[in-house]
């Protein structure tokens, strides 16, 4: 009996120790390789830019076969946490760092990499896209003040549309998300009651509505529930062919959400972008458009998505000059050539003014005090 049990135990132990020794020897082998070594650039954060960054990773690997970009879509909050704990080389977030967050991660650079729009979608049998909304009306719908589709305020701005005498089923996100942050920022700007009672945030204390999980969840709920209204990232509305509402901007126009109207919005905001290493806490396209009566053609619920990197890369553990150089080169490529992949995936390419701004920011990145881009 004893031999039957003892021998397998010994064998298992031998295999385990042997495997550990073997692993140890291979990892030494890799680190002894020269400058031609493979480099993994690890990032994590917002899910919104994930498809774009994933595309970048694949395309960049074709140009630089030794460079592997790994980006995990774990959410903006998780991205900021990992950036603060210095466990990733770059992080993605839909909202800039708050002053408190910036204090925990000093010398962080903000790099806007793409632009997204949040659009109202609805399920009204027989009514195509183009139903008009104002921010005030959207806020009152989401506050539960406007409960019928044929409310006088909706019919007044939608002449000729036969709005049904049906209750509005409000759909919103149940999970915390950057989409909700942008949406509630917009509602806070246009409605004092929203600002005081609900506020802006990745998740808020919703006065009403059904919660769907993720953009997919909201899309599915709206598609299946007649007389519902929801909000999603533009890409989801487009991919699923959902009717989008037109939203009135401060200039008084009802603007169709399109890649062009998002880009317009970003251009107006880009005039006042802070330096890459300054505080970006107040940067918000939504806010900058809130009272900009001259921003013609700009869709008001638009936002940047950012990558965060440290200005001095030697604060990261395991960082060396090779990796630092590869990281900066990849970021440079992403804000230039990488933008060509945006439109096919329904992302908004950065306007030239923002690209120039990013160039300045990227030139600030150093390793051990030496500038990486000349």
């Amino acid at each position: 009996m004893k031999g039957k049990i003892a021998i397998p135990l010994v064998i298992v132990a031998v295999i385990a120790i042997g495997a550990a020794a073997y692993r140890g020897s291979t990892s030494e082998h890799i680190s002894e390789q020269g400058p031609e070594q493979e480099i993994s650039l690890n990032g994590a954060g917002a899910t919104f830019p994930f498809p774009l960054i994933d595309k970048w990773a694949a395309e960049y690997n074709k140009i630089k076969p030794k460079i592997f970009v790994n980006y995990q879509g774990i959410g903006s909050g998780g991205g900021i946490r990992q950036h603060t704990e210095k466990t990733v080389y770059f992080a993605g977030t839909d909202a800039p760092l708050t002053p408190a967050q910036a204090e925990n991660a000093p010398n962080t650079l903000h790099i806007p990499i793409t632009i997204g729009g949040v659009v109202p979608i609805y399920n009204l049998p027989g009514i195509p896209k183009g139903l008009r909304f104002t921010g005030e009306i959207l806020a009152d719908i989401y506050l539960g003040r406007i409960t019928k589709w044929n409310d006088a305020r909706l019919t007044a701005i939608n002449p000729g549309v036969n709005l049904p005498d049906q209750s509005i089923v409000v759909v919103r996100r149940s999970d915390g998300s950057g989409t909700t942050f942008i949406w509630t920022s917009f509602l806070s700007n246009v409605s004092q009651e929203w600002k005081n009672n609900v506020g802006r945030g990745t998740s808020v204390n919703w006065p009403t509505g059904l919660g769907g999980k993720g953009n997919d969840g909201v899309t599915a709920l709206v598609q299946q529930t007649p007389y519902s209204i929801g909000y999603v990232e533009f890409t989801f509305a487009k991919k699923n062919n959902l009717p989008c509402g037109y939203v009135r901007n401060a200039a008084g126009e009802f603007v169709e959400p399109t890649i062009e109207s998002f880009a317009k919005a970003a251009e107006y905001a880009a005039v006042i972008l802070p330096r890459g290493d300054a505080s970006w806490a107040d940067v918000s396209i939504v806010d900058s458009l809130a009272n900009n009566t001259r921003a013609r053609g700009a869709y008001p619920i638009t936002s940047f998505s950012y990558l965060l990197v440290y200005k001095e890369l030697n604060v990261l553990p395991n960082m060396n000059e090779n990796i630092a150089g590869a990281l900066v080169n990849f970021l440079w490529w992403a804000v230039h050539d990488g933008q060509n992949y945006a439109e096919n995936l329904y992302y908004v390419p950065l306007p030239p003014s923002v690209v120039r701004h990013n160039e300045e920011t990227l030139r600030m990145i150093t390793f051990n005090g030496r500038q990486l881009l000349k």
Partner: protein
Amino acid sequence: MQNPPRAFSFFHNLKAKIVALPRMRLKGDDVFKLVCALFASSIFLILGLMVYELVRGSWLSIRTFGLNFIVGTKWDPAISRVFGALPLILGTLVTSAIALVIGVPISLGIALALSEYMPKKFGFGVSFLVELLAAVPSVIYGLWGIFVLIPFLRNHVYPHLQSAFGFLPIFSGPIYGGGVLTGGIVLAIMIIPTVSAVMRDLFSSVPNSQREAMIALGATKWETSKTVVSYARSGVVGAIILGLGRAVGETMAITMVIGNKFQVWPSSLFDAWYTMSAIIANELLEATYDLYVSALIHVGLVLLFISLVINILARLIVWRTLRLTRGIARE
């Protein structure tokens, strides 16, 4: 490749040394006993670490809100930053109760059919399919809930329920499709495999002498089945509690169909609600400040506590019934 032989010789020497001690010879049995004991005691370590981590993570929230967290009815991460979990606790318990009300009779029926009524070959096929249900990932149940069950219930079931029982408040109000009842139904489907499989095993293990005695007394099949269930009733309670445990902790499927509306009490069975595990899954990733994260971990701590209480209650019931049946047997 020097290490493996060295390791081998180390074990070899160790064994030689052990063999050399004639009195304290370590037998294979003892080694096995030791290893098993280590594995068994690791459960204390795991549970202890879990509680420690949960308490540590939720400490900020415990200090800030204290007991108000349990009885609080407000969840406002954006403005006042006040967190209270009562609606979540109620939502979890009520949806789980609905799941039991729907799922337990069905499971009982399946188990009895398999152990008492069906021919063995057919029964094997059925139990195989039921167990397959248990292997379906919960997110699949959620997707199926969204795309198949919800439209079906909204269009073909709930309107009839409402027109028949609409005078009752629990069947009144607007019908969205998703909601408390839909959540309960999905949970019921998810607990049926577990509960019915345990019950079937229990009923199969009832000694045939019980059945033979009943038949000898002229009992019908139905009366015999009742005896079988009552013979195994402590185990049946255990099976139900197992199902409750699964329902309480279920996350993905429920969050996809319940509507995730934070409110103390829904206006009807068709209204949306929220559960503890669902809010953790929904909000933890984007929880942007410490108190928020801490409050979500606090919800996890409460959930763990409730699961423990449910299980302890179940044990007490099982012990009680066992004592009673033994008493009857003695008489």
